[in-house]
């Protein structure tokens, strides 16, 4: 070890220091603070006077795990993710493939139309969908009844509230993933399709053996983003159902919001945040592991 190396090392540390400090201040410190907070019973009484704060150890976690509503929220979140992620990916991939086809005319217009829901205000569109899903006056039920099907109490019945909100969420977000897919689809070389066509492959076989392998890494990226997104679903049920009916649309994040900012039980809310973090982390690890198993060296 000569002194020049130390000087270079010092310079290197100097260059990364600003970034490290920013990460420490804006990421590590809040996370540690939240972890400590989750071990206390911080509530409105503590807000008024810190002497009313008690260190309660793992009690917040223990209470969450025995709280049926928390498990209900976990279950609902899982439903949203299990149904929503494949649905959202399928819809966006389908739209991207169609838009990428050379036979489609006015492509820029279609792109704008499909992307528009993503950039419009969530609350405004949620209110609009509330009307579309209305049991008596909604256009969706009007369509159902005009073809002879029974009307559905979309947001009023615990059995249909999750699918109803999913419909809205998928419609709202598929444009974003579609853009990513569209970008990667345009990088797939045309000669591959040409070769496949000469070998006699139909559209499905071309999709299966040319498109899918080419976009596999992007598919993984989109699925990770979507899972994280669906695990953090909050605003849609907040605006459309306020967690109802019968708390069937209370998600983990909604639960955390109510604990933290409606009732000011910040200790308990921090514990929820940590559990949610662990869940997203675990699922992402599983996704990465699965993609390594299936796809080889894409990542």
């Amino acid at each position, binding site marked *: 070890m000569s002194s020049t190396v130390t000087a270079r090392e010092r310079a290197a540390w100097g260059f990364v220091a600003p970034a490290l400090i920013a990460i420490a201040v804006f990421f590590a410190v809040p996370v540690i603070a939240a972890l400590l907070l989750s071990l206390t*019973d911080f*509530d*409105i*009484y503590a*807000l*008024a*006077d810190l*002497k*009313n704060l*008690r260190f309660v150890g793992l009690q917040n976690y223990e*209470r969450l795990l025995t709280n049926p*509503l928390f498990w209900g929220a976990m279950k609902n979140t899982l439903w949203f993710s299990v149904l929503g992620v494949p649905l959202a990916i399928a819809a966006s991939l389908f739209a991207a493939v169609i838009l990428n086809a050379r036979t489609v005319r006015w492509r820029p217009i279609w792109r704008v139309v499909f992307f528009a829901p993503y950039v419009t205000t969530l609350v405004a569109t949620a209110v609009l969908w*509330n*009307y579309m899903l*209305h*049991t008596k*006056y909604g256009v969706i039920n009007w369509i159902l009844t005009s073809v002879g099907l029974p009307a559905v*109490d979309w*947001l*009023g019945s*615990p059995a249909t509230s999750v699918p109803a909100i999913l419909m809205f969420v998928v419609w709202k977000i598929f444009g974003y993933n579609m853009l990513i897919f569209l970008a990667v689809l345009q990088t797939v070389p045309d000669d591959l399709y040409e070769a496949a066509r000469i070998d006699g492959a139909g559209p499905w076989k071309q999709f299966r053996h040319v498109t899918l392998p080419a976009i596999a890494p992007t598919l993984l990226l989109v699925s990770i983003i979507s899972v994280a997104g669906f695990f953090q679903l909050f605003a849609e049920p907040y605006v*459309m*159902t*306020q967690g*109802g*009916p*019968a*708390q069937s649309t209370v998600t983990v994040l909604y639960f955390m919001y109510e604990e933290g*900012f*409606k*009732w*000011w039980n910040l200790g308990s809310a921090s514990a929820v945040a940590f559990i949610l973090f662990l869940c997203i982390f675990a699922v992402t690890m599983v996704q990465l592991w699965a993609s390594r198993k299936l796809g080889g060296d894409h990542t």
Partner: protein
Amino acid sequence: MTDFAPDRRTALGLLAGAGAALSGCGRNDGRTVLQFWAMGNEATNVGQILPEFERRNPDIRVVVQAQPWTSAHQKLLTAYAGASLPDLSQVGNTWIGELTAIGALSPVPAEAADLQTDQFGAVLGTMMIDGKAMATPWYVDTRLLFYRSDILAKAGYDAVPQDWAEWKKSMHAIKRAAGEGNYAILLPVNEFEQLQTLGLQGDDALLRDNETRGNFASPSFVEALAFYKSLFDEGLAPLASSTQISNVWTEFGRGYFSYYFSGPWTIGDMKAKLQPAIQPHWTTAGVPGPRGPGASAPGGSSLAVFKSSDKQAAAWKLIRYLSEPEVQARFNVITGDLPARQSGWNAPQVANDPYIAAFKGQLSRAKPLPKAPEWERISAEMQIVAERMVRGEFTPAAAGREINRRVDRLLEKRRWMIEQGRAV
């Protein structure tokens, strides 16, 4: 590298500019600017009576910020945590205990003590925490029944029955008279006020042991739960939450439900929003109780000044103005809010209003709600369990026990606070 070298003056200029931008809405014209939060109907209409105050007090300007009722409670707590409370606010009467517990409120000063005279005792009682008045009642309300007299007549009733059994009979008759797809009463499953009223009518208190434990498995509350559930089970009330009823007045006008449970602000809404053809066919009546005319909670809002405000004197001037009986009577005409000052009720426009008479009777039977700071959340949990009961998850007795279990957990901190002598 040195193209942009801000000197001290530039920096100060930037700061001043930012400051001016931030305070832009306050246009510094030497007047005291009062930030006043109001909710719902009051927020919409209070602007109509403020010019008179500003005329009498040219040195004060009032900025009203409207808050929706559904998030007002949470906004007050958030503003407290973020040190951004206004100078004064309209406060729901059941929140006063909580806001006092966190030390957000300024007690009523000696020079404003006279505002506490000429008030309803049950309402005034809810503002007294540990022997100190923490707020001044602005308007009083209580909930009772708005009903369609034409449909009731069609069902064979010329008045609302006085006890639960007869009331339910009238609902069955209405259900038959109103026709397919219509109901007798609207009880949104995400609103706690209806069940709270039924529960309050019983003999047993809602909380026990100095309001540190739930008392929802008591015989009278279980009776209320059973009655509430039966209204859904027998098809008299639609199993719907308020978010699903897009326009209450249209539905009331169509006869979708004939009994609507609400407070005095609905008088103004009914007058303004119901079609002319329906106008002669609605009126108000007291809530039936288990065995004769029933109680309901003394509701309403009060006006409170926050400890954090540095404009206490000006804020109390505004409260003094809003508490004048004549001003309250005028506000009643605009909003339907019932004057908190009893002499305000003598004003001819209040005394001669046919819809208000029932409120007088209902207020005389008002029963105070528990003053535990956690009450807002307790009533929310009560409703959550009740909705599950209505949907078949619990029997009334099991629902009572489940509410108790949840409430006892919520009140754990309060028990500790009382043991430590930190709460009353």
